[in-house]
């Protein structure tokens, strides 16, 4: 096949692929344009998660009629003139590609009236073919209407995720820009009702509430910092934003958001710096929430790294990172000198995480105690469902919190209860030595198997509520919950969608007893966002796991001997008694052999 120059449409579609990846990236480009145009009010309409329609309307400066044709040309922009300008970019866009790229993969209509023009104009671009500029009556500002995105790129269309996922991406994007521009009124419409609406009064905390939910927003700590050591490595840096206290964590980094000069970027080194600021305050595998706004001289940061502009390069990366880290650490310590167990937090929140975290301690302590001993190497089985004693020192468990477990049929031997230690662990004797059992993890396992059994028999009864309870969730959790309503139904939650981001709880699983339905529901969807579309089985196991975590007896609760015995015998009946549903071990086994060697009765001297 001979080499030939690609046809312009093909070339432009390829280029578009870099900028326009999914509906959310269209929204991003158009919103950035609107913000660059100085919009005070910004309305985004989407239909079918942006597949059918994305319409972004602003009241910005508008485009004069005679420039309209140019605006949809590739590499046409008003934001940049000379190459040197690239090093001091103060606008969000500058490449002059967005409109052209979007136009080449959709049916785009651009309607605009410049502030001082008497009449507006519009132009239509279909699959990269430009129409004619026509005069039209329009309000001041610009309306970009993108219809049938990717209609001419079936491959792209095929790779779009399901509507909910795409909508969630748009929700997340809009909320974040709303947060970065609190004095601009944002409105996101999906059909006739707004899913996001901000007042544009500069109040960031209110927007924070729609991003994370009211409870979380209330707990967020505000940080402000400035680094004015103007060295040759750069100018003044300013940081403002919100960080979570150490007691509030998520299981992924998704809720860490960085804005550099008003631009949403995903920069891993920056989030690493942030997480480092939390060093020793968080459990392994938990991450903070943050929305950080970094302001620095445009000369000190290069945004022209990737067409989507989500990555940046710093002129002095070390300085930026350590600035972020110091600022966050200082803010964190100022508010909470020690990581406190959140007593005031409601029961659904992180308190159980805290308590389960404690279970790492004895393992670590034991390791320390014997690691420094020159005596025989400690042989302790780390019980993980298999009956193969492995020779190893105990490691604090950092197992990933996966909901699914390998199903093994290893049952426990009959155990004799010895007692409870520290109101957290049970001690039991088996035919082969001593068992230390974490009561919370063990109870979680017991409940989990019961619940999954009932679930598999479709036998989880639901208790109707006297009067339905309304729960409003942040948009991201809301669309997630919406997709899981049938699953929740199988677990006895009668939940119905009730308007945008609002749900009506009509019934609760009996197991939940008297707990507050609203916080129960919130706890279920909180940090559930890690997998975009996990398998159904996994979701079910995950929900069950979460329910159990909520219900299981907490560490620190003194159990009477009957309760202790009942827990042991329930655990004996479990199919995989040795790990909790989240994968942490429920027990540590110390064999008779080990005891004898430790006491010098046998073996190496």
């Amino acid at each position: 096949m001979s080499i030939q120059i690609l046809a312009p449409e093909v070339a432009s579609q390829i280029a578009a692929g870099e900028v326009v990846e999914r509906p959310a990236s269209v929204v991003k480009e158009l919103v950035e344009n609107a913000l660059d145009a100085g919009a005070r009010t910004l309305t985004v309409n989407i239909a079918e998660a942006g597949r059918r329609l994305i319409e972004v309307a602003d009241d910005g400066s508008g485009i004069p009629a005679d420039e309209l044709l140019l605006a949809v040309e590739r590499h046409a922009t008003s934001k940049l003139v000379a190459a040197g300008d690239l090093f001091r970019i103060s606008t969000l866009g500058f490449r002059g590609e967005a409109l052209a790229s979007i136009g080449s993969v959709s049916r785009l209509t651009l309607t605009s009236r410049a502030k001082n023009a008497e009449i507006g104009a519009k132009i239509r671009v279909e699959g990269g073919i430009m129409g004619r500029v026509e005069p039209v009556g329009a309000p001041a500002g610009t309306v970009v209407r993108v219809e049938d995105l990717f209609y001419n790129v079936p491959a792209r269309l095929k790779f779009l995720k399901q509507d909910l996922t795409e909508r969630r991406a748009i929700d997340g994007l809009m909320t974040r820009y709303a947060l970065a521009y609190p004095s601009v009124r944002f409105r996101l419409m999906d059909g006739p009702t707004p899913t996001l609406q901000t007042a544009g009064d500069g109040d960031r905390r209110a927007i924070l509430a729609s991003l994370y939910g009211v409870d979380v927003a209330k707990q967020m700590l505000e940080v402000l910092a400035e680094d004015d050591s103007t060295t040759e490595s750069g100018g003044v840096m300013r940081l403002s934003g919100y960080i979570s206290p150490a007691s509030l964590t998520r299981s992924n980094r998704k809720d860490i958001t960085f804005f550099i000069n008003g631009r949403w970027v995903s920069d891993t080194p920056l989030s690493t710096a942030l997480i480092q600021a939390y060093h020793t305050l968080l459990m392994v595998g938990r991450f903070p929430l943050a929305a950080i706004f970094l302001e620095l001289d445009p000369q000190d940061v290069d945004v022209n790294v990737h067409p989507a502009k989500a990555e940046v390069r710093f002129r002095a990366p070390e300085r930026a990172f350590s600035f972020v880290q110091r600022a966050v650490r200082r803010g964190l310590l100022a508010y909470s000198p020690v990581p406190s167990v959140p007593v005031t937090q409601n029961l659904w929140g992180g308190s159980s995480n805290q308590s389960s975290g404690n279970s790492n301690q004895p393992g670590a302590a034991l390791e320390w105690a014997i690691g420094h001993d020159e005596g025989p190497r400690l042989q302790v089985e780390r019980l993980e469902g298999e009956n193969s004693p492995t020779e190893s020192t105990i490691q604090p468990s950092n197992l990933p919190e996966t909901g699914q477990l390998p199903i093994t049929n290893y049952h426990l031997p009959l155990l004799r209860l010895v007692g409870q230690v520290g109101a957290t662990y049970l001690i039991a004797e088996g035919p082969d030595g001593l068992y230390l059992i974490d009561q919370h993890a063990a109870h979680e396992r017991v409940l989990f198997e019961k619940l999954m059994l009932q679930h598999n028999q479709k036998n989880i009864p639901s208790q109707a509520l006297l009067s339905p309870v309304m729960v409003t969730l942040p948009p991201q959790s809301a669309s997630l919950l919406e997709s899981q309503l049938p699953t929740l139904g199988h677990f006895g939650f009668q939940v119905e969608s009730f308007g945008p981001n609002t749900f009506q709880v009509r019934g609760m699983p009996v197991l939940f007893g008297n707990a507050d339905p609203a916080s129960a529901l919130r706890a279920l969807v909180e940090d559930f966002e890690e997998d975009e579309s996990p398998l159904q089985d996994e979701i079910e196991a995950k929900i069950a796991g979460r329910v159990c975590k909520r219900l299981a007896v907490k560490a620190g609760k003194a159990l009477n001997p009957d309760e202790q015995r009942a827990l042991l015998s329930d655990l004996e009946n479990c199919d995989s008694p040795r790990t909790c549903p989240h994968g942490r071990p429920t027990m540590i086994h110390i064999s008779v052999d080990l005891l004898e060697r430790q006491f010098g009765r046998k073996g190496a001297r």
Partner: protein
Amino acid sequence: MKVTVLQENLTRGLSAVSRAVSPRSTLPVLANVLIATDEGRLRLSATNLEMGITCWIGAKIEEEGSTTVPARMFADLVNTMPDNQVHLNLDTRTQTLHIQSGASKNDVKGIDAQEFPPMPVPDFDNAINISVADFKEMIQQVAFAASTDEARPVLMGVLVSVDKDTVTMAAADGYRLSVRKSTLSAVAPSPVTAIIPARALSELARIASDGEQQVQMVMPKGRGQVVFRVKDAELVSQLIDGTFPDYQQIIPRSHKSRTLVSTASLLKACKQAEIFAREGSNIVRLNIKNSGELQPGEVEISAHSEETGKNETLVEATVDGIPLLIAFNVKFLREVLEVIKTPNVAIETSAPNAPGVIKPVGDEHFLHVIMPMHLG
């Protein structure tokens, strides 16, 4: 302070105030009971700051005074006194209370009465008077339906409203609702609505003995408190702040099926069903079978558990309306049947997913709503 009291009086008084003692408070004096001479009688008070109980007992007072001593140990001590006469003598300098009875001599270290939180002294002139027997029955029929979940404080209370000569109590825990009305002997001076902690009401029912005629209730303006007085005891409780759900909306206005059944038989059947149901999810099924033209109707009460087995009881009933299979939490059903005094009870409902209304037959003053359960 120098007083002599009868052991049985002191025991009774200490037992009455004991529930308000808060043994594990950060404020040590709250674990104590206040002992003070008060116009020829001895006053005993305890408070946990949410609720306070005061009780007066007869005493021979030789010298006025007051102190506080650890409630629990003082009660244990008094219970085991050898003689009927108990002499209390306070050494104010050391705050040590000498307790003597027969050959038993004891010194108990106290805390100065000044440190004890002051109890309100309300004006009972405008009090609402309610018959003790009525009030106790109301509390018994309503308070159990209140929630115990501290996440929703409003539901931990009982809505008490007085309007003209009617007093109404209502409590709900999200799944069931209990409402009881009663008539006052005299018209109340002004209408009152307040949410009173269910626990305080239950305590009141405990300390108000049946022999007494009236309980007086006042809510001093602007203090967020309610004070109850019976013959020789007072109970003060903080009111719960908030809005009680509009329970009138929850009560169904119509029904498609009404089942009349003997209260005792249904209660017995429920208790049996509970033995099985409690192993699983507390679910009991009521299969309401329509009365034909000639044969009587019946209700089949059944429960089953995967592990233990199943139970089934047939109870004769008069069924008016459509036949129905409906499931309830057996504990809820049992608890309401236990407080119904009439020999027969009516269950009104419309569908398996509609609320069930339980009414004593022949008593218009009580009504209970239970939400059904259903399998997913």
